[in-house]
């Protein structure tokens, strides 16, 4: 696939990358390279020029610690219009944990303080505070036409979806958005938000390939098929987790 090229915009690699999120970028990068798709990773850290966003064919953003999220929130708010335009326009993206929460309407802290979100996804997040533990553990969901997605979640906030957005998947094992309604993550146009790290893409290569395919189709305006890669190790890693949880893949 030598004639194809992709630019992946990685939002805040310095600050929003606490839970091995770099693995998602590595997965996208390698799976492009192994297919001879020319891939460029553009790191967009605090203070980046928002015109750089428009050159990206795909967006990735990971999660972080509370304090670091605050620094990012201030910077990202300035780039909201451009990011919203891209997401509305169907530029594919993957937003993990803190990044996923940012896309919503607001985040209500344990002390009641409300932090505004980017208001791109119809959802909000509440941190129930002391007395409620963080939702931590291996998690398995059904998503993308009932396929099994495996990951690990670790979040204090509980996210609730509005009417104008679909969930990414249904919880099989774990907590998902809030531990109650069995929804996990959210999908709007070609943008995916999820609490699953692990990181999510290396052990769910079909999801990585979907993002690559969507980005190529969006960029080149024609249906694209990726040729399959040798994924036996990926499958073994997925199966090992499913086996421990006694879930069939």
């Amino acid at each position: 696939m030598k004639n194809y090229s992709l630019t992946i915009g990685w939002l805040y690699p310095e600050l929003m990358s606490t839970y091995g999120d770099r693995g998602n970028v590595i997965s996208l990068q390698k799976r492009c390279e192994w297919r001879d798709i020319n891939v460029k990773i553009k790191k967009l850290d605090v203070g980046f020029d928002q015109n750089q966003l428009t050159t990206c064919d795909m967006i990735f953003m990971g999660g972080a610690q509370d304090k670091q999220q605050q620094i990012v929130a201030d910077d990202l708010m300035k780039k909201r219009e451009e990011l919203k335009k891209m997401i509305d326009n169907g530029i594919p993206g993957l937003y993990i944990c803190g990044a996923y929460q940012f896309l919503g309407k607001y985040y209500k802290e344990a002390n009641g303080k409300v932090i505004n979100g980017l208001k791109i996804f119809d959802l909000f997040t509440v941190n129930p505070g002391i007395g409620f533990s963080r939702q931590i553990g291996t998690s398995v969901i059904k998503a993308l036409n009932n396929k099994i997605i495996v990951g690990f979640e670790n979040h204090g906030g509980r996210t609730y979806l509005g009417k104008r957005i679909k969930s990414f998947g249904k919880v099989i094992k774990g907590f998902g958005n809030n531990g109650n309604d069995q929804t996990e993550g959210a999908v709007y146009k070609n943008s995916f938000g999820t609490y699953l790290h692990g990181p999510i893409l290396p052990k769910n290569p079909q999801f990585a390939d979907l993002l690559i395919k969507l980005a190529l189709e969006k960029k080149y305006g024609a249906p694209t098929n990726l040729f399959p890669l040798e994924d036996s190790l990926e499958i073994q890693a997925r199966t090992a987790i499913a086996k421990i949880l006694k879930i069939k893949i």
Partner: protein
Amino acid sequence: MNLLLILFGNLLSGISRFFNFGSGSTWPGHIALSVNKNFIKDLLKNSKTKIILIAGTNGKTTTGRLIQTILEKNGRKVFQNQAGANLLNGIASSLISNSSLLGKIEKDFAIFEIDENTLPLVLKEIDNPSFIIILNLFRDQLDRYGEVNTISRKWSEAFKKLSKQTTLILNADDPQVAYLALHLEGANVNYFGINAKNSANKIQHASDSIYCPNCSAKLFYKTICFSHLGDWSCGECGYKHPQKTFTSFPFYPLSGTYNEYNTNAAVLLAQTIGFEKEKIIVSLKDFKPVFGRQEILNINGIRVQIFLSKNPTGFNESLKTIINLGAKNLLLLLNDRIPDGRDVSWIWDVDFEDFSSKFRNVVVSGDRVFDMGLRLKYAEFRSFETEKKLANAVNMAISKTPKNETLYILTTYSAMLDVRKILTGKKIL
């Protein structure tokens, strides 16, 4: 009651050792604390033993052993909690096994390595420790410890009540650790660090505190050692690396930059107590590492060296150190049990990409063997083998290692205990 608990506890560890159940490093303390929750406080109340607490993400056990060695070789009576038994129960256990039958502790120093989350709890039981060493703070087992900032906030709160009787020994090169001194009320502070040899200004991916702990602006680094450790300053609020730091010593008994930090911390403490440089050097000349921390074993004529590597920064530094030692044969072990952290996503923050063509033989095993295999695949390691069964993996790795070379084992905590048992036939904890 406490005397009874001491007697019973010592009996229990004796039985446990006799039957090779492990050395009984936490049970006796666990039982004592559930009978008397003030057990630690009671026992230390009338004791003259000076207490040294060591906390931080990496290097606690080695630093403790360095201090113990210096003190003992200079004629002091010292005891220490067992490596890794660093919760309240481990501390109580070590008090039990070092008490006389009359409940007296007749030692000059007690050295306790303390788990990050346990440090504030320990300071409730031990009012005025003589020293608290804080080595560093890196991301580690986020599912268990939470985030770096959360830990430092809890520590800062717990340190407020310390008096002049306590001296904090802080790593000046770690901004988040140095920052602990800013809001102290009573305690004294001494700083250690190291002089970065290379002034590489590239920040490693696995860095956690590259923004100012005081005002959140991005820090400027004149030099970087590794991760976020270096000569930092904030252009915004002016907060910067503390000046008075102890940075070099003529003799380092262990390899690796991280062990220069550990040694400097231990030596600074010894010098603060009043030991002379020459005496410290002599006492460290035949230093023996703690099990699993660069420990060397000889297995049927093959030299095997074990490097406990349990988080991104620790792993990066272990890889760098063994490459400097000329490593060609590698066994990587990844477990996800409670002591390792259930979340293995951190392996993607390790810079395996820098090492993809450095090794000749690589074998991978552990509970999460395929996750580690996947990590190596995406780092484009030329060749490696995955083997689910640990014993088989160990045999494979040893048989691939030529007679005059060393097999390096980089492993998470519980896998380290398992592999040691396979190699030595003895259980350690």
